[in-house]
């Protein structure tokens, strides 16, 4: 009889403990006020860019670049998240730190000794005739997402040029006469592998 009573009390205590444990897992009211996570969504982007043109003509030139990039990706069947950062240094940092798969910028943004690690597609040229600098999409070779993006971009770019859309975009944003008659020949010297 004594043993039965003891066993019953033990069972009761165990049941009570189980009930209390279940309550504890739902105790949101006791959670700390300062949550570990930061407010809002963290920005994740596939491609980073920055304001390439001087402040004076920033709007038209950068809008042209943005439209060329969007249109080329779209023609190539991709729709990556492109983040326009306010600083060139930050955009380069994002690429080299692996925060972004690709960068839209100047060729000089990728150091010569590191260039082999990147697939680079030149899609515009800035500067004067005797000192032009390529505007590129630079993608990390070892990153499969980046590689796919670059291939899609390159295919899409060539389609834009072939269909005349490239010229339309440039003329609309920058006025006529900014690019030569044969755009493909203009960009070929900067894209080894283009036939």
């Amino acid at each position, binding site marked *: 009889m004594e043993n039965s009573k003891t066993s019953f009390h033990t069972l009761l205590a165990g049941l009570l403990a189980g009930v209390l444990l279940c309550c504890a897992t739902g105790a949101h009211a006791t959670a700390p006020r300062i949550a570990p996570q930061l*407010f809002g969504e963290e*920005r994740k982007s596939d491609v980073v860019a920055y304001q390439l043109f001087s402040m004076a003509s920033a709007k038209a030139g950068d809008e042209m670049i943005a439209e060329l990039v969007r249109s080329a990706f779209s023609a190539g069947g991709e729709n990556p998240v492109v983040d326009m950062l*306010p600083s060139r240094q930050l955009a380069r940092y994002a690429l080299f730190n692996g925060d972004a798969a690709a960068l839209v910028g100047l060729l000089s943004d990728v150091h010569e000794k590191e260039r082999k690690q990147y697939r680079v597609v030149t899609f515009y040229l800035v500067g004067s005739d005797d000192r032009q600098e390529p505007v590129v999409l630079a993608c990390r070779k070892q990153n499969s997402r980046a590689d796919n993006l670059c291939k899609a971009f390159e295919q899409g770019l060539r389609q834009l040029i072939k269909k005349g859309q490239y010229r339309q975009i440039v003329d609309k944003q920058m006025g006529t006469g900014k690019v030569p008659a044969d755009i493909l020949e203009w960009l070929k010297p900067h894209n080894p592998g283009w036939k």
Partner: protein
Amino acid sequence: MKILGWMFGLWFALQAMPVAADEFQTVRPETVGLSSVRLDRLGDLLDAQVEQKKMAGAVVLVARHGKIAYFKTVGVADTGKPMRQDTLFRVCSMTKPVVTLAVLQLYEQGKLLLSDPVAKYIPEFSHPKVIEMLPEGADPAFRLVPAKRDITIKDLLTHTAGMPYSFASEWYPKDRLLRQMHDLYEEAGISSGMYETEGTIGDMVKRLARLPIASQPGEAFIYGMAADVSGYLVEVVSGQKLDDYIAEHIFKPLKMNDSYFFVPPEKQDRMSVVWKSDWQGSLEKVAPGPHREGDYVYSPTFQTAGPKTFLSGGVGMVTTPYDYFRFAQMLLNKGELDGVRLVSRKTVELMTTNQIGKLYETTLHDEGWKFGLGLGIQADREHNVDAGDVGTFEWAGLYSTRFSVDPKEEKITIFMSQTHPFNHHFELWDKLLVLSTSSISD
């Protein structure tokens, strides 16, 4: 006995009533416990500065118990134009306490909390990154680490949000971190507001938000751009442009009828020009338009010329000594002036209490100084920079304007000139404040 009781009650009630600010009238200093003879020393000091061509002109105002006891002008506002009591001055960073008050009015209405993440109202501030400098020679020169917590509205009001001024690299040329921040700000087109700037404050703040901050939120006092973010915050939360909000909710109720962000054409002839002084006797007018001196860009004309679209919560205000006296008197009255309450006593107490913990406010003062919300506060009288009493609160503007409020003595001291560079005036102001304090004779 009854009569005595009534008299005591009346006296007590009168002491408790907030003082009203008098309309440009001055009283004999002795009626408010100040010495005329000692106050005249302020004028002598300023006259000497003008005679020595260290500055072209200035205005000084000393008030006590709500009454202006000394209101002196010296020198000229412009060639052939004497300084006047109603001369208009670009007060630069003395804009910050005004914008702070605007934020706190919205706080009192329950429209925001000081503990709110800034990202709640300006989403571009979500998930900030903190810049850490790597050893010299590293490429890149920095790395970015996640912030430990959100930047809060309180961080903005206490300059612990890690946002220096771009030109801070000029003040501390050996500081690699400030140099790096300057470079990033230049790339991003971040304006201090001290010169003609295209675009709106919102455009700029959104770009600023995407840049890293210079310290973990709350961990360092880094004076600078936070007030411009506060200004944009006022716009977002109130739905009004900053100048409209402040005109309606601060300037008008306080009858600050000569205070603006952009000065109307009919009042521009009352503005003092900005003078460049080497403090050795060489004085010249600063020509209109932007001027670059190293990393520092400034202009005397951004409030009267140029696009006039950029409303800087950090440096944008133009006002007169009398108008700013009314603002200071409201603070001294714990939020009320002439029967009009702008904020509660409790909010002014929040503004004038240390909010930066163990950090020090050493931008304008030294280690004996703390910072409340928008205001530097004297925490002890043991250090080199003394403003007369523990609890004194004050701030300054880059064209050599200053104000100081001593709550214990119910005294306000205001000095305004338009002299560049700023660093020349420190000795003059410290002496002025000593003379102001020393004029107390009760």
